[in-house]
């Protein structure tokens, strides 16, 4: 992989960020209501003060100037001040981001650990009993909405069996090994809800990708050289079959974020998803805008990472 490939990918990510920022700004600009609505109806604020404020924040400028102003502020990390929490929005988000990334990351690992073996096994025995069961379970898995599986798990493991806590706690009192134990116990359900949902849709991709590769000539060659079936699958088939799966994992990320918002809300994980919901319910516009922007930026970032991994896995891509 060359530096030119990296640079080209980076340059391609910029217009996407630009496009998403335009969409977000358009939504904001089209929205009814004046950000200074309270000031307009408040009799204690004289009209000239209001007009001065409007001029200061550039609300009477042409749209494109307001957009550039807003974009520059977003890129500088100047995201405004949360009306509700009384802190800067960027600090608020930075506090919440690690929990979200941890839950999403762990869920992705669970999804891959479940989907790859099951998908490969199903593809090596197409239309067998195992394949049919795996396929049906995958269908059930991605037809079960995350909010329902979350409630079901709480009902079974917290309410009925009492094994796991159903509220996520960031200030655990335990230390050392006990801290890890408690952290594990409280993360199991959110991670499983998200990971199994994600894994269920991945299984089908892995299966069809392996099926595409397994009939290629080089696999027959490998077999005819007398290499054991197991080694052919793990060394020759899976490595190449995983290349399209990497892209699919990245393309699925917007859906993962949707799932993360719901899971964080159910299990009260203090991440940026539950922050988004709380700010919407509290009419905290700067936080709502900034969190949406962060989600969009994360999607682009992970697409970029997927592109880079893709170029590394498949060197032919980089030289095209």
């Amino acid at each position: 992989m060359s530096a030119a490939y990296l640079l080209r990918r980076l340059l391609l990510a910029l217009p996407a960020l630009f496009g998403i920022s335009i969409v977000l700004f358009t939504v904001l600009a089209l929205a009814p209501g004046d950000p200074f609505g309270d000031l307009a109806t408040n009799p204690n604020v004289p009209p000239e003060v209001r007009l001065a404020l409007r001029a200061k924040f550039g609300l009477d400028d042409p749209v494109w100037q307001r957009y550039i102003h807003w974009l520059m502020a977003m890129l500088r990390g100047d995201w405004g001040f949360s009306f509700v929490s009384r802190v800067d929005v960027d600090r608020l988000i930075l506090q919440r981001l690690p929990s979200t990334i941890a839950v999403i990351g762990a869920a992705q690992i669970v999804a891959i650990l479940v989907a790859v073996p099951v998908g490969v096994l199903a593809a090596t025995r197409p239309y067998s009993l195992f394949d049919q069961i795996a396929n049906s379970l995958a269908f059930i898995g991605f037809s079960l909405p995350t909010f329902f599986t979350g409630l079901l798990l709480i009902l079974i493991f917290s309410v009925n069996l009492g094994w796991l806590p159903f509220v996520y706690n960031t200030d655990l009192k335990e230390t050392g090994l006990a801290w890890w134990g408690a952290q594990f116990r409280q993360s199991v359900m959110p991670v499983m809800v998200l990971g199994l949902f994600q894994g269920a849709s991945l299984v089908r991709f892995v299966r069809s990708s392996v099926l595409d590769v397994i009939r290629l000539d080089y696999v027959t060659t490998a077999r005819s050289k007398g290499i054991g079936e197991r080694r052919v699958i793990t060394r020759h088939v899976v490595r190449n079959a995983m290349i399209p799966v990497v892209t699919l994992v990245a393309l699925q990320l917007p859906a993962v974020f949707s799932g993360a918002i719901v899971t964080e809300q159910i299990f009260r994980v203090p991440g940026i998803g539950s922050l988004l919901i709380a700010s919407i319910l509290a009419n905290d516009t700067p936080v709502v805008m900034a969190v949406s922007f962060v989600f969009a930026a994360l999607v682009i970032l992970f697409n970029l990472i997927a592109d880079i991994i893709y170029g590394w896995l498949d060197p032919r891509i980089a030289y095209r």
Partner: protein
Amino acid sequence: MASTTAPKPKPPLSPTREAWRRFRKHRLAVVGLIVLALLVLAIIAGPTLWPVAIDDIDFAAQLKPPSWAHPFGTDDLGQDLLSRLIHGGRISLAVGLSAMAVSASVGITIGAIAGMARGWVDTALMWVTDLFLSLPQLPLLLLIIYLFREKLKALLGAEGGVFVLIVIVIGGLRWMPVARLVRAQFLSLREKEFVEAARALGASKFRLVVNHILPNALGPVIVAGTIDVAAAIIAESTLSFLGLGFPPDIPTWGRVLFDAKDYLDIAPTWALFPGAAIFLAVLSINFVGDGLRDALDPRRVH
């Protein structure tokens, strides 16, 4: 000699019969179709068979488990859950179907324009499609609903405003797969001989698209549309579950689940029934979509 004794070849089946024959082979799809038909029947005939008001408050029967008087139990106000779920199912399915109609029409229009125009129009439209594909859907959905809800409520009333908003937004964020499918189909179909023949006969561009190309491109679109119905139902329930969809007096399945989630320990059945309803509807629609793929999408047969 052999040719005279050979059985007469069966007359070819019509495309619909052929598709139905292939659909029937997918056993789970047939089961899905039956479950879906039963659900739709229950939702249509339900209010006449079970004429209990959805807002009949009865404090003597709060949070009851299923009984003969209330087959699905009651909620915290003693309202009958069976009739609430029947009513909610109408809205959930209506949202799903309307959002699918929106996303399919937007997708077909954009895909058709991109496939016919090619050149820079195609490039620009596909860039927009890719951009929309990388938008984080739920955050954007929440953002738009947050910003526009009050305005539309004032314009169209609580129920109508939220319905229109949810349908347009869900539909408007899900057209991209359809657009890509239609474009790909158009690019290959427009070079086929039958289109060439129609063009040679002097058919206008519009007539080519509507009468010749589009009908042949519809198979994959129908499959994608079916799955979109399920996705829209999930999206609507998610919004309602987060407390940002329909107001409490409109008991969609997600909304009932949202109200039930704080009473899991006292009245688990309150949450189980709406959750199972969403799951059954989505699962059967997904299976029907899979069966339709076998039946309609010639590329996927293996």
